[in-house]
C-alpha cells in the first residue's frame, strides 16, 4: 500500500460520508425543520472525514522518506555503502528509482541490491501512515455523522472551515515575503562570515573568483559590490529613465488630452503590447540588433572604446520596455487632478498645452514621481535584457558606450555555473539578492506611499 492509495481511500471515505450525511439530513427533514440544508450536513461530515486525514498524510510524507532512508542504511546492504555523503546519496537515489520502476538497473552495482530493501521499507511505513490516516478519516466521519440533528448548525461548521481556508490563502502572501527575507538573510549571513560586510558594501573591485587551492596566486576573490550597483543604477535608473520618462509622459499626455477617443482606443493597447513582450525577446533584440548599431554609432562619433555590450544598448531597450508602465501611471495621476483646476486654467485663457504644463503636471507631479520610482524599481530588478545585452566586466565608468555589469547579471552568472552551493561565490548571489530586494522594497514603499497620499489629497 502506498500513500497514494491511502489518499484515494480517504477521498472515497469522504465521498461516502458526504452521501451518508446528506441522506441522514434528508430523513431528518421529514421529521421536522432543519437548521441547515442537507447539503451542508453532508459537506460538514465529509470535511471532517477528509481534512484531518489529508493533513496527516501531508505531514507524514516527508517523515516517511527520512525513515525509509534510515531503515535502508541500517540494513545489511546499506551498511556497506561508502560513508561519503555525496556518493551515498547518488546510490540511494538510484536505488529509489529502481524501486519505483523508473529505470531497469543502476550505474552503481549496490543500488540494485538496495532496491528491494527500499521497496519493503516504503511499503511498511506507508502501511503505518496510511492506516493511521484512514482511521482518523473514519473517526472524523463517525463523529461528524453522529452530530447530525435537526437543530445542528452544519452550515456554520462548513463556513468556519471555509473561513479558515480563505484566511490561510491570504496568509500565503505574508509567508512568501517572510520566506524571501529569511532565505536571503540566512544565506547572506553565511556569506558575510566569509567576506566582511564592509568590503562587500564599500569595495570597488568585483572579481568573484575563489581559488581551488588555498596557496594559489590571487586566491581571495574580491567581492566589492559598488561597481555592480553603479552599473545597475546607470542602466536602470539613468539611461532607461532618460528614455522612458519623457516618452512615457508625453505619450500619456497625448493620449489623454489630445487624441481622439477612437485613436486612443487603438493606440493604448498597442502601447501595452510593449509591456507584454517577454523580456527575453527584448534581450535578444538588444543583443542582436541594438547593441551592434550602438557600437557602430559610438565608433562613428569617435568613441574608440565603444563596446558591443554597451550600457547604452541595454538601457535604451529597457527604457522602451518601461514606457507603457510610466505612461499608465502618469495617465492615472493626470486623470486624478480635479476637473475644476483644469476648467479654471482654461477659463483664464490659457491654451491647452499651457494648462497641461503649468497646472496639470505640477498638480500630478507626486503621482508621476511615484510612478517613476516604481519604474526604477522594476528597471533595476530587470534581468534578461541586461544578462543578454550588458557585459560581465565590473567597470566604474560613466561612458554609456562602455561596458558595465549589473546586480542581476551577476546573480545569474554566479548561480548558473557548476560549483558547490556553499562556496562564497554562490552565497554572494544571495547577498546581492538581499540588497536588491531591500532597495526595491524601499522604492516600492516610498512610491506606494507617495501615490496613496497624493490620491487622498484630491478625494
Amino acid at each position, binding site marked *: 500500500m502506498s500513500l497514494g492509495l491511502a489518499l484515494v481511500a480517504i477521498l472515497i471515505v469522504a465521498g461516502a460520508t458526504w452521501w451518508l450525511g446528506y441522506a441522514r439530513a434528508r430523513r431528518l427533514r421529514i421529521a421536522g425543520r432543519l437548521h441547515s440544508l442537507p447539503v451542508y450536513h453532508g459537506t460538514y461530515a465529509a470535511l471532517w472525514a477528509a481534512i484531518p486525514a489529508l493533513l496527516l498524510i501531508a505531514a507524514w510524507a516527508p517523515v516517511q522518506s527520512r525513515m525509509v532512508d534510515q531503515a535502508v542504511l541500517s540494513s545489511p546492504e546499506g551498511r556497506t555503502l561508502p560513508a561519503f555523503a555525496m556518493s551515498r546519496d547518488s546510490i540511494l537515489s538510484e536505488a529509489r528509482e529502481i524501486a519505483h520502476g523508473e529505470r531497469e538497473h543502476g550505474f552503481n552495482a549496490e543500488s540494485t541490491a538496495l532496491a528491494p530493501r527500499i521497496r519493503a521499507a516504503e511499503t511498511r511505513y506507508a502501511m503505518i501512515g496510511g492506516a493511521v490516516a484512514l482511521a482518523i478519516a473514519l473517526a472524523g466521519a463517525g463523529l461528524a455523522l453522529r452530530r447530525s440533528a435537526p437543530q445542528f448548525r452544519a452550515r456554520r461548521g462548513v463556513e468556519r472551515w*471555509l473561513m479558515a481556508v480563505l484566511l490561510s490563502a491570504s496568509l500565503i502572501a505574508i509567508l512568501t515575503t517572510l520566506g524571501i527575507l529569511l532565505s536571503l538573510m540566512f544565506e547572506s549571513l553565511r556569506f558575510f562570515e566569509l567576506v566582511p560586510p564592509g568590503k562587500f558594501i564599500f569595495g570597488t573591485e568585483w572579481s568573484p573568483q575563489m581559488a581551488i587551492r588555498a596557496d594559489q596566486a590571487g586566491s581571495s576573490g574580491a567581492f566589492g559590490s559598488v561597481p555592480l550597483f553603479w552599473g545597475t543604477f546607470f542602466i536602470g535608473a539613468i539611461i532607461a529613465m532618460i528614455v522612458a520618462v519623457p516618452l512615457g509622459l508625453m*505619450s500619456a499626455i497625448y493620449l489623454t488630452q489630445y487624441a481622439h477617443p477612437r485613436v486612443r482606443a487603438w*493606440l493604448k493597447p498597442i502601447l501595452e503590447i510593449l509591456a507584454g513582450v517577454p523580456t527575453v525577446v527584448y534581450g535578444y533584440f538588444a543583443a542582436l540588433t541594438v547593441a551592434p548599431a550602438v557600437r557602430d554609432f559610438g565608433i562613428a562619433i569617435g568613441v574608440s572604446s565603444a563596446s558591443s555590450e554597451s550600457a547604452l544598448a541595454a538601457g535604451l531597450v529597457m527604457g522602451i520596455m518601461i514606457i507603457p508602465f510610466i505612461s499608465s501611471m502618469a495617465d492615472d495621476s493626470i486623470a486624478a487632478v480635479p476637473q475644476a483646476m483644469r476648467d479654471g486654467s482654461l477659463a483664464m485663457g490659457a491654451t491647452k498645452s499651457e494648462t497641461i504644463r503649468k497646472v496639470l503636471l505640477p498638480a500630478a507631479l507626486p503621482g508621476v514621481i511615484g510612478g517613476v520610482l516604481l519604474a526604477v524599481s522594476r528597471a533595476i530588478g530587470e534581468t534578461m535584457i541586461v544578462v543578454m545585452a550588458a557585459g560581465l566586466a565590473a567597470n566604474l565608468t560613466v561612458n554609456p558606450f562602455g561596458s558595465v555589469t549589473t546586480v542581476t547579471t551577476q546573480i545569474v552568472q554566479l548561480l548558473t555555473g557548476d560549483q558547490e552551493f556553499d562556496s562564497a561565490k554562490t552565497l554572494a548571489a544571495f547577498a546581492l539578492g538581499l540588497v536588491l530586494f531591500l532597495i526595491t522594497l524601499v522604492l516600492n514603499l516610498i512610491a506606494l506611499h507617495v501615490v496613496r497620499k497624493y490620491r487622498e489629497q484630491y478625494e
Partner: protein
Amino acid sequence: MKKRLRSRYAAERRFRLLGLSAVGVSVLFLAFLLFTMAAKGLGGFTRYEAALPIDFAKTDLFLDPATLRGPDAEQAVGGADIEGAIARSATDSYGPAAKEMFGDAAVRSLTRAIVRNPDMVSGTATVWLPLASNLDVAAKHGGDAKGEQLVSRLRAKQALRSRFNLDFLSASDATDPSAVGVWGALKGSFLTIMVTMLLAFPVGVFAAVYLEEFAPRNRWTDAIEVSINNLAAVPSIIFGLLGLAVFLNVMHLPRSAPLVGGLTLALMTMPVIVIAGRNAIKSVPPSIRDAALGVGASKMQVTFHHVLPLALPGILTGTIIGMARALGETAPLLMIGMRAFIAAPPNGVTAPATVLPVQIFLWSDEVDRGFVEKTSAAIIVLLLFMLLMNGLAIYLRNRFERRW
C-alpha cells in the same frame, strides 16, 4: 498682442506634435521589433531539402524489409548506420565535397521514411532530405564559398527545394541546429503553467475574497495588503532565489522540474491575481449583496453564490494576463536550474524540462549561425502564444464584463 498669441499657438502645436511623436516612437519601435523578429525568424519555419538517390544495395545497412514490419522497426533502423549510408550516397551523387551535406535532421527523416516504407531498402530510392545547417543557411542567406558552390550545383540539378519545417514544431532541443524544435520546450511551458495556474488561481481568488469581503480592519490585514502590493513589484529574479533556497535546498524537490518552476511562478503570479480579483470584487455593486442578505443568505453564501460569479470574468481576465506574464518569464527559472540541455520532452511535472523563454535564451547563446533564425522562430512562437492569451483576456473582458 497678435504676435504673442501666434507664438503661443505655435507652442501649442509644437507640444501636441511632441506628444504625437512620443507615441510614434513607441509604436515604431514595436513595429521595428516585430518586423526584425519576423524577418529573421520566418526562415526558421522552412528548410531546404535536397534529393538524394540511395542505392541500398551499395550501403552497409543490412536491413531486411521483413524485420521492419514489426513493432520494433524504429529500433532496428536506429541500430543501422544510417548516417554512414547517407554520407556515402551523398559523395556518390554529388562528389566528395558533399560528405557532410546532411546532418542529424536527415538521419531522422530517412529513419522515418524507412519505417514508413520498409520495401525501400531492397532497391534504390530517391529521398528528399533536409540539408545540414550550414548549407541551409547558405541556401537562404549565403554562406562560405564551399557551401554556396554546393548549393548552386544542387540548384542547377534541380535537386533543391524549400519546404515547411514541421520538425521545428514537433522536435526538441538538439546540438545540431538543423534538428532542433520547440516541442519539448512548449510541453515544459505547458506543464509549468498548469502547475502555476492550479496553485495561484485558487489561492489568489480566496485571498482576494478574504481581503475584500471578510477581513477585519486591523494590523494583520494591513500587513497582508502591504506584502501583496509589495510582492507584485518584487523583481522576478528574487522569486528565483527563493525557489532555489526553499524548494531545492530545503525541500529537495527535483532540479529543473516543471513542478518547481510552477511553484516559483505561482508565488510570483499570485499577487497579480489577488489585485485583479480585488478590483473585480470591488466593482460588484453593494445592492447585489444587500438583496441576497435580505432574503436570508449567510455572508458566505452571498459571497460564493452571488458576488464571486459576477466578479469571475474580471478575475479570469486578470488571471490570464498574469499567466501570460508567467509564460514569458525567464529569470526565476534560470535560478532553479531550468537551463540544462534537455533533448526529450518531459513526461511529467517532476521530469527535467525547459520552457520556451529559457530555450530562446539558450539558443541565443549558441555561436552556430543556424541558431539565429531558430531563436527568432522560437520567439515568433512565443509571441503568438502571448498574443493568443492576451487576445483571450481582451475577449473575455469585452464579452462578459459588466459595467454597473
